[in-house]
């Protein structure tokens, strides 16, 4: 079994690098860690980067997870190939472009680009966002799924993800104590449904709600509170239609043995206990 220990970064292609950087810093509140010729590395916590925009097709969207070491990485490659998932082994320059010491790339059953990495770079310099959004770090992604039942099986049997809760057939899955690191979202094709950053307090969520509203950033869901994870949230749209989320107060599941996934109905109140309505229209 492939043991994922944490989520590492998201890589997004964009036709307009300047616009993407402007949004990521001025609106989202990330910090530029490094600017390459055709890419920008953005920081949200102690890591050297957690989001990379590069010049390219915006349909190219990749999420990366960390595995323990080179042995685990080799074993993961073997396991994926043995069940028919072609594996790309990262070259030295590709590793440098990801600020990791080794990685493999593959597609999940829906066709999402997934990378497994070892030794992602940390930074000694304290993260200091461009605006006071209260960000404490990159936390999780929503991942498109053309068949949530099949994909749940992949992430929980080929990998070590555990189901924390389900809304209808949609599984919210964890790879560590955090309620979910990976949330499946029903969709017609692959892609990242949303990128989550945690903030310090509910006040930060609400301040951002008014700040983003002032700046005409489309709010797609919230402010609200998820009954599953307990988190207060705000979803809004960034460049190329990508949805970003701020949230705070995600439950932690410390007692693995005692946790039993809860089943919520597939209805609006399962997504927001306050009554906000989702306006997640895929673009």
């Amino acid at each position, binding site marked *: 079994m492939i043991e994922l220990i944490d989520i590492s970064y998201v890589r997004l292609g964009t036709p307009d690098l300047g616009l993407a950087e402007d949004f990521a810093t001025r609106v989202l509140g990330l910090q530029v860690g490094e600017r390459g010729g055709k890419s920008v590395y953005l920081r949200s916590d102690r890591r050297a980067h957690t989001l990379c925009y590069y010049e390219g097709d915006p349909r190219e969207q990749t999420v990366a997870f960390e595995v323990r070491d080179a042995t685990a990485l080799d074993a993961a490659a073997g396991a994926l190939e043995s069940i028919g998932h072609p594996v790309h082994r990262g070259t030295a320059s590709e590793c440098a472009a990801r600020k990791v010491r080794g990685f493999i790339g593959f597609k999940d059953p829906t066709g999402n680009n997934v990378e497994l990495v070892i030794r992602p770079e940390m930074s000694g310099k304290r993260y200091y966002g461009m605006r006071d959004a209260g960000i404490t770090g990159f936390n999780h992604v929503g991942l498109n799924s053309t068949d949530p039942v099949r994909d749940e099986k992949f992430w929980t049997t080929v990998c070590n993800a555990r189901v924390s809760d389900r809304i209808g057939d949609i599984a919210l899955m964890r790879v560590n104590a955090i309620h979910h690191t990976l949330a499946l979202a029903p969709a017609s094709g692959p892609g990242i449904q949303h990128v989550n950053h945690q903030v310090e307090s*509910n006040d930060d969520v*609400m*301040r951002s709600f*008014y700040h983003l509203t002032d700046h005409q950033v489309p709010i797609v869901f919230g*402010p*609200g*509170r998820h009954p599953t994870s307990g988190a207060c949230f705000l979803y809004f749209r960034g460049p190329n239609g990508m949805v970003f989320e701020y949230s705070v107060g995600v439950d932690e599941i410390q007692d693995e043995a005692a946790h039993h996934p809860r089943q919520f109905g597939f209805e609006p109140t399962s997504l927001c*206990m*306050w*009554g906000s309505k989702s306006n997640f229209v895929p673009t």
Partner: protein
Amino acid sequence: MSKSDAVTPFSRQPLAYARIPVLSPEAAARFAIDVLGLERSDHNELAFRSDDRCRSIVFTDEAAPLAIGIALADEETLERKAEALSSRQVSVTELDKEACRSRAVRRAFSITDPTGHSIELVARVELSARRLYPLRDSGLAGFSTVGIRSRGIDADVRFWCDTIDAEVADRVGDITYLRMDAAHHRIALYPSDRAGLVYASFAVKSHDDLMREAYFLEERQVRIVHGPGLETASNRVFVRFQGPDGAVFAFEFNGNEEQGDRRPRQFALDRYALCAWGSSCRDVRELAAA
């Protein structure tokens, strides 16, 4: 010494009730039940309760002035207060038995603030033994705060502090929050060119309740005039909305309320001094920063 541990002239719940003049009492009554989630407490009058007390708000004829009931600790305190005010040439009127019955109090004296509101000093506020169980699950905790207009802020602040024994908690510009118990404030005075209520506010039990109320109001197409927001000076979460006849009501959550024995702070009058989250109010001049 703070009002919470000093010998205070006020009852444990100093803000007793508000008698609010309205143009269409029936519409106001429907709003009180359907939207505010209050419970009607008297079938002869448009009186509503929001907590263990028999009255929180009463809708009165539009010709009557806004009246705010302030509960003193006991009848002796009330009598002493009335005598003291009379001796200072303040015009004090004792309300008759029928007026007391209508207010669900045992004794009441009426005085007038400089702006022209009727301030009713009362004692022995009646409680209902029956547990509050309103029609909808709004998480109501009880009548908490009123915002009132002031035509002359200095005179009104002097009146509340010298005549009623309230204390200035904080100021935003000339907006003045007045403390009467452990809560940050029970009365907020807003400079204006006219008299009347700015809002009557009901506390709810949790932050979740407050946000649920905000979405409930949106769904019911009630016009939200301010919030959801975080009142900077008090650290209360609020949502303020339009009732019938232009009356504004509010829900607030006081769980992280600012309390403190300290000198009143002065905030500059800007949007963030009125809402730390950055919400702004356009519809009610007194609640807008600019």
